[in-house]
C-alpha cells in the first residue's frame, strides 16, 4: 500500500542522509521524496511516499521519530490532502508539429518555457495521474528527457501538520 508521510525536520547538514539512510537500512522503499522549506526558518519539510503495509508504516514513523533532528512525522495518506508534482519535459518538436504540441500542452494547462529549433521544454504540474497522462501524450512526439520534483502536499482545509507541542 502506498503511504504518504510528511516529515518536519531541523534544517541541519546531514538530515536528509539521516532520514533516507534510515529508510534504506531498515529495508523500506522510498518511491518519492521531496524536500523544501517551511514558513519557519530552520525547519524543512520532507514529503515521502513509501510502499508498505500498515504495520511497517507504523514502525517507519516510530523509527523516524527517534531521529534527534526529526520534529514531527505525520501519515497524510488517509487525510484529505492535495498533492502536486512539478515536471519539466523536453520533447522533440519539429517545426511542423509545434502547434500540435502547443495545443496538447494547453489542454493539460502546461507551459512552454523553452524553445529551440528542434525541441521544446514544457512545464507541467499536477498529481501523478495527470503527469502520467501528459507523458503518454508526449511520447508520440518523442520525449528526450524529463526532470521532476517529487510530490509535495498539504492537508485540505485549515488543518496543519504541525502541532502545538512541536512548535514550543
Amino acid at each position, binding site marked *: 500500500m502506498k503511504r504518504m508521510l510528511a516529515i518536519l525536520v531541523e534544517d541541519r547538514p546531514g538530515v536528509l*542522509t539521516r532520514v533516507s539512510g534510515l529508510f534504506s537500512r531498515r529495508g523500506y522503499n522510498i518511491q518519492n521524496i521531496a524536500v523544501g522549506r517551511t514558513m519557519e526558518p530552520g525547519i524543512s519539510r520532507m514529503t515521502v511516499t513509501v510502499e508498505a503495509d500498515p504495520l511497517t508504516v507504523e514502525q517507519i514513523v516510530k523509527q523516524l521519530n527517534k531521529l*534527534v533532528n526529526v520534529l514531527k512525522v505525520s501519515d497524510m495518506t488517509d487525510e484529505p490532502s492535495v498533492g502536486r508534482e512539478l515536471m519539466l519535459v523536453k520533447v522533440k518538436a519539429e517545426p511542423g508539429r509545434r502547434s500540435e504540441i502547443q495545443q496538447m500542452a494547453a489542454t493539460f494547462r502546461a507551459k512552454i518555457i523553452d524553445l529551440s529549433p528542434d525541441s521544446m521544454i514544457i512545464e507541467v504540474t499536477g498529481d501523478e495521474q495527470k503527469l502520467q497522462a501528459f507523458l503518454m501524450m508526449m511520447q508520440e512526439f518523442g520525449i528526450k528527457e524529463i526532470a521532476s520534483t517529487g510530490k509535495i502536499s498539504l492537508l485540505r482545509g485549515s488543518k496543519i501538520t504541525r502541532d502545538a507541542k512541536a512548535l514550543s
Partner: protein
Amino acid sequence: MRLTGAQMVLACLEAENVEVIFGFPGGAVLTLYDEIFKKGIRHILTRHEQGAAHAADGYARASGKPGVVIATSGPGATNLVTGIATAYMDSIPIVAITGQVATPLIGTDAFQEADITGITMPITKHNYLVKDINELPYVLKEAFHVACTGRKGPVLIDLPKDLQVQEGEFAYPAQVEMSTYRPTYEGHTGQITRAANAIKKAKRPLLYTGGGVISSGAHEELLELSRRVSIPVTTTLTGMGGVPCDYDFFLGMPGMHGTYAANNAINESDLLIAVGVRFDDRVTGKLETFAPQAQIIHIDIDPAEIGKNVVAHIPIVGDVRLVLKELLKRLQSAETHDTREWCAKVLEWKTAKPLRYRQEPGSCLKPQFVIEELYRLTRGEAIVTTDVGQHQMWAAQYYRVKRPRALISSGGLGTMGFGFPAAIGAQMAFPEKQVICIAGDGSFQMNSQELATAVCYNIPVKVAIINNQYLGMVRQWQKFFYGGRYAHSSLAGSPDFVKLAEAYGARGFRVTRPEETAAAIDTALNTPGPVVIDFQVDPEENVLPMVAPNTSIVEMIGGE
C-alpha cells in the same frame, strides 16, 4: 569565559563528573591530548581504539554512568566502529569524541580523513560534526544528555583539529533545549491500570525481562512485583541480575540456549509481562510459535520497540522503573488471582529439568565446571564480563549473578573480543571489586593486546580463558547443522596463553584437570595485578539445551 575548543571539552568532562576516559592519541587530537595532559584527568591509554571503546562500554555497563572514549581522525575513528555498534545494540551510554581534519580540509580526502559521522550514523543514537566553535559547548551538553536519557546509547562528536585551538565563549549550559527529543518516562495511567487488571486475572503470568530493567534500575520493583503476585521470572542475557539468579522464582534465560523451565513457561503462559526487552530472535525462536497462548504486556521506553516484532495487547511506553512502581500501586496481593498452581508447575520444571553437565573426576576438564568453580570461589560476588561464543552462554547459565550490572556481555551485536577490554573498563569503575573476564580462546585473541594496558595501569582483572581450541560456537553449529564439517573453526596454532601473559608482564596459569581448578582459581584471585588462567577444556563440549534457529523454543536439543 574564553576557552579553546580543547579546553571546552575538558571543562565539559569536569562538569559531567567524568572520572576516567579511555583513548588513543593521534594527529587530529594532539591539542585535545595536550589539554588532557595539562588538566591531569584520568586517562587510560589502550593498545587499540577498539579496546578503548569496549572499555568505555564496560565502564558504563558496570557503573551506569556514561563511558567516554577519545580517538583520532581516520583510522582512529574507524577503529571505534565495532565498539560503538556494540554499545548501540545493547543501549549503553557512551560518548565518543573523535578528532577530524581541519574544517577547510573536510571533504578533500585529506590525510587521515574519514567521514565518521556518516559511517556511524546507523550505529549511534545521534552524532555531531562540529564546524562552529560557538556550538561546541551546547553540543557537548546535548551529547551527554542524549546518551544518558530515554533509551540510552552511544553518541559521537567529531571535532575538527582547528576547532580544538580556536577560542570561543564558554558557559556550560545548565540544561538542554531540544524540541525534537523528549523521551516519555511516565507510562499512560489508563494502560497501567489495564495491565494491572490483566495481571489480576492471569492464571499463568510470566515476567520476561531484559536490559531495560538494568538500565532504568528497576530491579527492586521487579523483584517486588514477582514476589507480591507470585510471578516467575525469566531474564535475557542483557537482563541478567534483574533478579538474583538464586531467587526461587527465577527460571534462567529464555531462548536459544534457555532453560527448559523458561522456554516452557513462555510456551504455556497466558500473560507475558515483557519488561525492557525487544523480542530478539535469539529469544523468540520462530516468532509465530512464540508465547502462543499469551496476552502480551510490553513495557519499554522506546515506542519503536513496541509492535516491532510481536503485537503487544497492552503496550506501555515509559521508563520501566516508573511504570513498575505505578503497577505495584495497583496490585495488592490479596485481590490478585491465585497463581500457586502455575508456580508449582513451573518450579517442578525447574527442578526436574535443570541445566546439567557431567564432570568426571580425573578426566577431561568441563567448561561448565570451570565456571561453577569460579562462581563458588568468588561467592557469586564478582563482576563478570564475557566474550562471545559457547563460554558466554555457559557463563550466563552457570555464573549465577545476584545483582544487576554484574554480568557484562555483548548481547545484541555479539562482539568477540569485547570481554577483556570491557573488564578493564568495569574494573576502572570499581577498583575494589573482583572483576573476572570469562574469555574464549578465539575471542581473547581479538583484543589480547590490552594485556599491556592492564599491566601498565595495574588493573587487576582476572581472565579465565575457556580454551577449547575451537571457535567453539561455530564448531557446534557445524556439528549440528553442517554435517560435522569443521570449516575453519579450529584454532590450532594459538599462542601459549601463559607465556603470552608473561610476555606482557602479567601472571599466567594453566589448568588441564578438574582437580587443579579450585587451587588455581584461588591462587589467581589472590595474585595482585592482571592474571590469565588458561583452562584447557573439553574441545567438543556443546552448549545445551539448544533451539535450532527459527524453530519453536520448546523444541530443545538436549532439553530432556
